[in-house]
C-alpha cells in the first residue's frame, strides 16, 4: 500500500512547528500504524533526514505510551483502540493521512509527535491510591468483595493512562482519566477510608494542571482504548458532590 503522510514536525517545545508531507510506499496491509511509521523512518534515515519522533513501547495496546492524533481523531479512525493496535488495512490505498500529536495545553510537545503527559502522574499523586504500607495487609480473603463489584472496579482500573480522552475532548478535559481512578477505588472497600479527600484532591490537581471542564459530550469514551465507561464520570460527579455537599462524617 501507498500513503501520503502529513506529519507534524516540531524540533522542541520552543519551536512553533509545522506540517511536512512524506510519501511512503510498499507498506504491507498487515503492518501496524507504528510499523508504517517505522518504514517511513528507516527511509528518512537512509536519505540522511531526521526521523519522526513518536512515543511507543509495548505495541500491544497496554503500556499507554503511543498516542497519535490521526485524521482528526485520537488513536485514529477506529473507536477504542490504541495507535499501536491500528493496522494499515484499516486505511485506503493511496490515502492521505494527517498525523499530529495529542493536543492539549497540559501536554506540551517535546518533539514532533511526542508530548509530555506527566500531568496525569501528578493527578494520581494527588490521591489515586490506597494508603497502605508494605507489610501491613490482612489476609487477602479476609474481606469478601462481591464479584460484580470487583468486575466493575476492574473496568475502571483498566485505564492505560494514554491521554486519548484528553486529546479527544474539545475542552481538553482529563475527566475520564481522573474519574476512572476515583470510580475504581470508591467501589472497593479498601478505598473507603480516603474516599472523600481523594476525589477533592484529584479534581483540584486536574484543575491546577490546566485541563478543561467536562461538558459530557462523551467523545472521550469513544476513543478510550481501555473502554473505560462514561459511568466513571457520573461516579466522579456523585463522589464530588458527596464530598462537597454532605458534612464530613469524620470531621470533629
Amino acid at each position, binding site marked *: 500500500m501507498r500513503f501520503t503522510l502529513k506529519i507534524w514536525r516540531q524540533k522542541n517545545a520552543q519551536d512553533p512547528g509545522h506540517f511536512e508531507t512524506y510519501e511512503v510506499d510498499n507498506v504491507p496491509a498487515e503492518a501496524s500504524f507504528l510499523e508504517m511509521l517505522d518504514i517511513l523512518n528507516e527511509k528518512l534515515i537512509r536519505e540522511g533526514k531526521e526521523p519522526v519522533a513518536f512515543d511507543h513501547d509495548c505495541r500491544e495496546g497496554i503500556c499507554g505510551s503511543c498516542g497519535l492524533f490521526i485524521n482528526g481523531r485520537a488513536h485514529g479512525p477506529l473507536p477504542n483502540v490504541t495507535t499501536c493496535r491500528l493496522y494499515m488495512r484499516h486505511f485506503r490505498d493511496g490515502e492521505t493521512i494527517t498525523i499530529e500529536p495529542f493536543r492539549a495545553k497540559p501536554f506540551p510537545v*517535546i518533539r514532533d509527535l511526542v508530548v509530555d503527559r506527566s500531568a496525569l502522574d501528578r493527578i494520581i499523586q494527588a490521591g489515586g491510591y490506597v494508603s497502605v504500607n508494605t507489610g501491613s495487609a490482612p489476609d487477602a480473603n479476609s474481606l469478601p468483595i462481591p464479584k460484580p463489584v470487583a468486575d466493575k472496579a476492574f473496568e475502571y482500573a483498566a485505564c492505560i493512562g494514554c491521554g486519548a480522552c484528553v486529546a479527544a475532548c474539545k475542552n481538553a478535559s482529563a475527566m475520564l482519566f481522573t474519574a476512572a481512578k476515583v470510580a475504581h477505588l470508591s467501589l472497593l472497600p479498601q*478505598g473507603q477510608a480516603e474516599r472523600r479527600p481523594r476525589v477533592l484532591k484529584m479534581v483540584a490537581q486536574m484543575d491546577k494542571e490546566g485541563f478543561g471542564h467536562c461538558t459530557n459530550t462523551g467523545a472521550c469514551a469513544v476513543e478510550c482504548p481501555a473502554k473505560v465507561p462514561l459511568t466513571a464520570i457520573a461516579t466522579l460527579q456523585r463522589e464530588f458532590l458527596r464530598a462537597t455537599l454532605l458534612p464530613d462524617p469524620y470531621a470533629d
Partner: protein
Amino acid sequence: MSTTTIENPVTTTSSVITWREGEPITNNKVPGEDLSTRWARHKDSLRLVAPHNKRKLEIIVVGAGLAGASAAASLGELGYQVKVFVYHNSPRRAHSIAAQGGINAAKNYRNDGDSVWRLFYDTIKGGDFRARESNVYRLAEVSVKIIDHCVAQGIPFAREYGGLLDTRSFGGAQLMRTFYVRGQTGQQLLLGAYAALQRQVALGNAKVYHNHEVLDIVVEEGRARGVIVRNLITGEIHRVAAHAVVLATGGYGNVYYLSTNAKLSNATATWRAYRRGAYFANPSFVQIHPTCIPQSGEYQSKLTLMSESLRNDGRVWVPRKPGDPRPPHQIPEEERWYYLEEWYPSYGNLVPRDIASRAAKRVCDMGYGVGPTGRAVYLDFSDAIRRLGREVIYQRYGNLFEMYEEITGESPWETPMRIYPAVHYTMGGLWVDYNLMTNIEGLYAIGEANFSDHGANRLGASALMQGLADGYFILPYTIGDYLATQLFVKLSTETAAFEDAERETKARIERVLSGKGTHTVDEFHRALGKILWDHCGLARNASGLIQAIQQVRELRERYYKEVRVPGTGSEFNQNLEKALRVADFMELAELMIIDAYHRNESCGCHLREEYQTPEGEPLRNDQEYAYVAAWEWKGEQEPPVLHKEPLVFEFVKPTTRSYK
C-alpha cells in the same frame, strides 16, 4: 594476558570461543539454617537503620516495573530518600504492564493441597534444578504476602461469586494457584505499585525522573556510588550519587530484535554494570514462550504473546497429515494430532514453556506445521466453548481473543489460533547473593534483571511473583544491612570515578553519532537478532555457536563504521537512544553465545542438540554443570572469566524432569 584474579590456563576447546576459569563463588550469603526458617532467621540477623538515619540515606532505583516500583515505594515508606530513573515518560509504562496471565502464590485457597513447599518444588523443578534452593524457597514463602498486599492496595482481582479470590492453573503445576485480573494481571499489579510509588512522591520520600536513561554505573573502590544519566528530552548528561544503587531494569530478550518484549526494553544498565565488574549469570538462559502470534513479515517490529492461561482451556494440535491443505474446521477429530496430550499425558497442554516450545518446533521441523510459513500450530478453543459456553470463555480470555483478532484478522471464536514460540523472558541476569546484592558492594539487582530464582526455565505466573517479592518483601530488609555501614559516607559527584564514567559515556555517544554509513540501527539489530535466533535460540549446538560468534563480531565491527544515526546528542533523539542500546546488545550477544557454548549439557530452555534423548528431551549433566555460570568482564580484548557458584541441593533431589 594482563589480568588480576587467579585464573587457570585457557580451558576452551575452540580457538574462536575462549574464556578462562576463575575462582568459584563460595560466599553467596545463604545462611545455614533449615530451609523453612532460613529467611526468618536471616532477617533477624540483618543490621537495622534507625528511622532518623534512614532519612539521610539516598537510594537510586533504576526502572519502575514491578520490581523497581515496588522497591521504590517500599523503601520510601521506610523513610529512605529514593530517586527513581525511568526512560519512559511515566513510571506506569514499564513492560511489566503487559504481563497477562497471573501471579502464583501458595495460598492454598483451593484446598487442592498447595503449600510453600509445593510452590518451591514446582519452581525449582520447573527451572530444571539450575536455581538456588534458598532463594526459591524464600520466593514461595513470601508469595502469600504479595497477594495480601496487592488486595489491600485495591487491585481488582478476579473473584468467585462468594466474593473470595479466584485462581486458575498455569504451566508446570498440577494445582490452581494463579491469581489473576482477567488478562491484565501485570497491568493491575504494576498500577498498584505505581500508585504506591506516586504516594511516596507526594509524601516527598521519592522523586521520579521520567525520560531519564541510566547509561553507566559509577563504582568507587568496589562500591556502587551512583549513576550517569542522560536526560532524554534535553540530552544533558548528569552525575547522580547515592548510598546504594538498585537495578530493576528488566530482561534482555530484545537482543533477538523480535521478541514479546516492549520495544524499548534493553540491557544497557545491567550490561554497563557488568563492564564495571558485576558478574553476569547464565546469560544464555532465555525463555522462549510457546504461545505467540507467528511472524508474518520483515516489516514486523515485535511479536505478540498470547497468555499461557489460554492453555487452561485451549488444546494444541496439528493435522496428522503433514501439509494438510484443509482449513482446520474441516479436519475431523481423528485426523488431529494433540501432540502435547499424547507426549505428556499427566500435564497435557499445561507442560512448562520450554517443553511446549520445543515440542512446537519439533512438529514443525517434522513438517506438520500449519499456516502460510508452516511455522505454527493450532491452539483450539472449540471444545472449551462447547463445554463451558461462550460467556465463561469470554470472561476468562475476552481481551486476548480480541487482541488476536485485531492483529490477525481471524476470530478465535470461529477458527483455532495459530501460534508459534517467541523470545519472551530472560532467566539470566546479574548475579546476586541471597541479599540480592551483586558482587559490587551496594549494587543490587532485582526482578528480571537478576538471575536468581528461575534456573534454566521460568514457570508461568512466576515473573510477577518474583518482581514483587524482590521489591516489596526482600530488598527492603536486605538493603538496610548494607546501608547501616554507609551512614556517615558523604556523597560527592566530584570524584575521579564519576569523571571517568561521564567521559566514557559521552565518548560512547560520540562514537555512534560519528558513523557516516548508510545503514539504520534497526538493520543491524535485525541482523543480530537473526544470528541469535538461528544459533542461540530454541536449539543450540557447538558448531552453530562458533559460527554465530564470528558473525556477531563481524557485525559489531561493521556497526560503528556503517551505521547512521541522524541528529545530535544534545536533543531528544530516539534513534541515538536505540543506537546505544543496540551497541550493548551486540556485546551481550557474544557473552550469551560463550555461555551457551560452555554449558555442555541440556537443561530447561538450553537445549544443546548434542545432549538430548532420542525423543528430544534434554539430557542434564549434574556431575559437571550443577552450577551457576557467573561471568566477569575483563576488558575489550580479553576473554571473560567464569566463576562457578555450585548449586547445592540439600532439600530436594535433582531428578530427571518429567512431565510425561
